[in-house]
């Protein structure tokens, strides 16, 4: 499908209330994350060894309470937003780069190379995510780099398949034939023609990779393979809080709330972008509906979703 220009897409996106609200939420959270990198109310890492303010519930001095070492949970959550969001975006970026490169080569080359590369994707799919992440964690160490490499390595396959499918579809379009006939090199064709027209599904896929990375990171922390302390991301905070669920639920509830909102927001934005890109989607009108409008509504189909779900499988 020909993708509309960015401005038109954004204009369409604005008309989907859920997606737009979600976009605002994400911007807010990112803003918080950036600010956190600059300044936090109380230090999230160091703790006073002699402190007695342990495991307090939410109160005036500590908006979200304290943890078992007396550290202010609010600062830690705010600081954690920086880490979690950056892990999410970096993973998505890595998946984007690796997946797009892989998929474009495979889709463009076609034939035997394509077959071979898709077998490679099969192998990558068949390796259990958890195993790869554990092994990378042990090899590289449990730092941020280890987590990022591990998460990136298990997330690129979907994008690769998507890009390849797009390329295969576009190969036979006229403008590609024209470009080939005019003697342009493969790389140029990919960069100037194929990629820009595949941008839509790629962006949608990337938007969905971010929340999945954030969730994977929290699961990794829970089973003990995530970031090592004192690094605090929402994932490590939530898994630390799991033990105190009965006595001090605030330790798990607040970080989980933030994870929840962020992931929800990204999901809505992803949906919104997908709907915005599909020219067949009818968007909520800006004026009151008339009877003729309703009749028109009955006539269109929303089928784009189904194809994408299937391909993502």
């Amino acid at each position, binding site marked *: 499908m020909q993708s509309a220009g960015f401005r038109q897409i954004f204009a369409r996106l604005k008309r989907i209330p*859920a997606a737009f609200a979600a976009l605002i939420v994400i911007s807010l959270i990112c803003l918080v994350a950036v600010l956190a990198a600059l300044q936090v109310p109380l230090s999230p890492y160091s703790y006073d060894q002699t402190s007695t303010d342990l495991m307090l519930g939410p109160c005036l001095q500590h908006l979200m309470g304290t943890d078992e070492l007396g550290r202010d949970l609010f600062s830690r959550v705010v600081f954690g937003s920086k880490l979690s969001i950056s892990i999410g975006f970096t993973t998505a970026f890595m998946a984007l780069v690796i997946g797009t490169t892989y998929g474009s080569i495979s889709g463009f080359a076609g034939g035997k190379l*394509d*077959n071979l590369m*898709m*077998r490679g*994707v*099969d*192998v990558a*799919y*068949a*390796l*259990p*995510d*958890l*195993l790869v992440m*554990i*092994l990378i964690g*042990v*090899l590289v160490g449990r730092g941020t780099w280890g987590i990022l490499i591990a998460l990136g390595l298990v997330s690129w396959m979907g994008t690769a398949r998507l890009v390849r*499918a797009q390329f*295969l579809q576009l190969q036979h379009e006229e403008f590609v034939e024209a470009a080939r006939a005019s003697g342009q090199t493969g790389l140029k064709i990919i960069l100037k023609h194929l990629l820009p027209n595949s941008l839509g599904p790629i962006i949608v896929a990337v938007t969905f990779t971010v*929340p999945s990375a954030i*969730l994977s990171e*929290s*699961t990794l922390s*829970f*089973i*003990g*393979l995530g970031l090592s302390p004192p690094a605090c991301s929402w*994932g490590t905070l*939530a*898994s630390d809080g*799991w033990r105190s*669920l*009965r006595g001090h*639920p605030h330790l*798990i509830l607040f970080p*989980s709330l933030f*994870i*929840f909102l962020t*992931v*929800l927001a990204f*999901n*809505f934005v992803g949906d919104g972008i997908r709907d915005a890109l599909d020219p067949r989607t009818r968007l909520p009108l800006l004026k009151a509906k008339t009877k003729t409008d309703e009749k028109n*509504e009955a006539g269109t*189909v*929303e*089928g784009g*979703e*189904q194809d994408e*779900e*299937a391909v993502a*499988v």
Partner: protein
Amino acid sequence: MFSYVLKRFLVALPVLWIIATFTFLLVRVVPGGPFDAEKNLPPQIIANIKAKYHLDKPVHEQYFLYMERLAHGDLGVSYKYVNRTVNDILLDAFPVSLQLGVCGLLLAVAIGVPLGTVAAVNRGRFPDSIAMFLTTVGVSLPGFVVGALLILVFGLYLKILPVALWESSRHMILPSLTLALGPAAYISRLTRASVLEVLEKDWVRTARSKGLSNSATIVKHVLRNALVPVATVLGPLTAILITGSFVVEYIYAVPGMGRFFITAVSNRDYDLIIGTTLIFAVLLIVANAVVDIVYHMLDPRMQTGG
């Protein structure tokens, strides 16, 4: 048709072989060995143990030994669980994971399909938004948080369901539910999309004009056809459910296969790691193959490579 199935099967074998080799090498590259313990053993004892498990031989010899056993279906022995073969261990654990996975899948379908249908039929109106919101909620929390909330509410406060363990069929409910929420969201979206597509078809209007009430139409005609794409997705979902349930099995103390991914690597239990990886790979390949075969059968015009 048969040739296509055969082709898929033949292609799967080298993939499995690559996975086995890759994992074999990878686990030996990772530092730390299976017999490093807090109390260091005298070197001769270590030598004795290594000889027993052929770990003193050069890597390529170990590899050939392993591949030879693998060809006979013998997945090796565990270093940590002494005197138990990997086959035994996985045979004990796999049915439990299978049960959990199947229950989870059924619950996911039981939740996802009605939600998706309701959403599609009421598209654009309030029930649609609510249903889609509910499904998105299901995938927006990490698994262990969902598990924690369920245990807290149903097990400890309301006390109507067991908190953990795997003693009776009642014990299956909470773990399956925790497992099912993610796939339920996925299935409900898919159902919604395909029901919408079917709703637009001419023959639905025909059915309506024949005088069938709305719900009868939906159930009798629309749902039948809309569920086909959903059915094709169940394949890969099952594989993921069955083996990707480590967190659920860990929280609820369910004796399944998921825990081996972690414990086997921590223990450097080489054969068990490769065995578990291979089982997962087989399941996923079979599931993907089923999807492809079904697609192929539904539309033989689709001649993609994979």
